[in-house]
């Protein structure tokens, strides 16, 4: 039995294969809910929870799922956990849920969740799968919070609903348009950093 390097899995989820900026998967919510830090954070928490639980479940059941029906089975596992998240959010975060309920439900169609279940959890033991799911979810959460800070600060001059600037420097940032701008600029910036300081190729993955 080889020793599993949890640190590598963890780093991979947050930097190497950051779901939003690196793999460019599941972009819809990344643009949609990041008009404020709080929304981005709650969405990130929802995804973190779903990914961890899905990876755990798939990993536990991997010996019982026939490979021929594995994708439908994963989809039902994901749908179940999303339903759980959805119901909890609807009960305890009513104000936020009104804005982003649709996006919470659509976590079920996230490519990143299915791809981690298929690529990692279905082949690995319980604990590494949980760590993988959690760190991928954390990478997603970080990306959302980063975008949320950028957009809320420029668009409303506030952070987490608290006024900081007292003015609204760039109102466009909280409009739908701003989401796309923020995302494009952020990706370009990270690519630039990657190429300049780390000698990477600095290319964003193809969108799926």
């Amino acid at each position, binding site marked *: 039995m080889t020793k599993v390097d949890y640190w590598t899995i963890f780093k991979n989820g947050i930097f190497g294969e950051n779901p939003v900026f690196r793999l*460019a*998967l*599941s*972009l*819809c*919510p990344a*643009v*949609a809910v990041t008009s404020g830090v709080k929304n981005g954070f709650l969405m990130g928490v929802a995804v973190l929870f779903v990914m961890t639980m899905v990876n755990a479940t798939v990993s536990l059941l991997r010996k019982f799922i026939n490979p021929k029906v594995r994708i*439908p089975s994963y*989809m*039902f596992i994901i*749908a*179940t956990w*999303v*339903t759980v998240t*959805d*119901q909890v959010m609807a009960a305890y975060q009513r104000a936020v849920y009104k804005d982003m*309920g*649709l996006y919470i*439900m*659509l976590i*079920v*169609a996230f*490519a990143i969740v*299915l791809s981690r279940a298929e690529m990692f959890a279905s082949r690995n033991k319980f604990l590494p799968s949980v760590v993988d799911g959690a760190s991928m979810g954390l990478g997603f959460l970080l990306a959302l919070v980063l975008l949320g800070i950028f957009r809320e600060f420029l668009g409303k001059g506030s952070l987490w609903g608290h006024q900081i600037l007292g003015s609204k420097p760039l109102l*466009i940032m909280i*409009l*739908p*348009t*701003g*989401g*796309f*701008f923020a*995302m*494009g*600029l952020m*990706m*370009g*910036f990270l*690519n*630039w950093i990657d*190429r300049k300081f780390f000698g990477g190729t*600095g*290319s*964003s*993955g*193809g*969108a*799926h």
Partner: protein
Amino acid sequence: MLEHVLTIFVASALINNFVFSRYLGLCIFFGVTKRMETAVGMSFTFTAVMLIGAALNWLIYTYVMIPYQLGFLKIVIFIGVVAAFVQAADTIMKKVTPALYYKLGIYLALIVTNCIILAVPLINAEEHYSLLESMALALGSGLGFGLALIIMASIREKLELADIPKSFQGLPISFVLTGLIALAFLGFSGMITL
């Protein structure tokens, strides 16, 4: 009545365009708009699947889920219905119209777990739309999505010749471009008030 249905149709196609103001279907949007031909094929397939998927899900939601109070299971049931329907369409098309299958079959495989296909029945269920209204929403959203794909594909063909900073090549510049188109679509927002 008819006016209301028409309003839903126009609103879902232009004002609440899936890509530009609801931010759904971005993965497909950036994935298939590199070539015009794929963009057109994709918009046809999407609109058809959306219409049929919305109708099926509406029937199940209204006649099975509401009477038995299974509303909380809508995510699980809708995704199951869509996946089963797309799989069936795939198999039937392969047997009946192989020519059409080779043109559109590859898109069908991509559709199963796509957010916008699933978003339409979810919105219908949330708004308690009638069958006619659901169809209007599905058709409007499908055509609106097709419009977005075709606009983007035609711009990206021009983009091939542009000299873009290295860090911005590929996705980042596409995002900025989408932002600009979304800005133009913002102009539709005062057209109808729902």
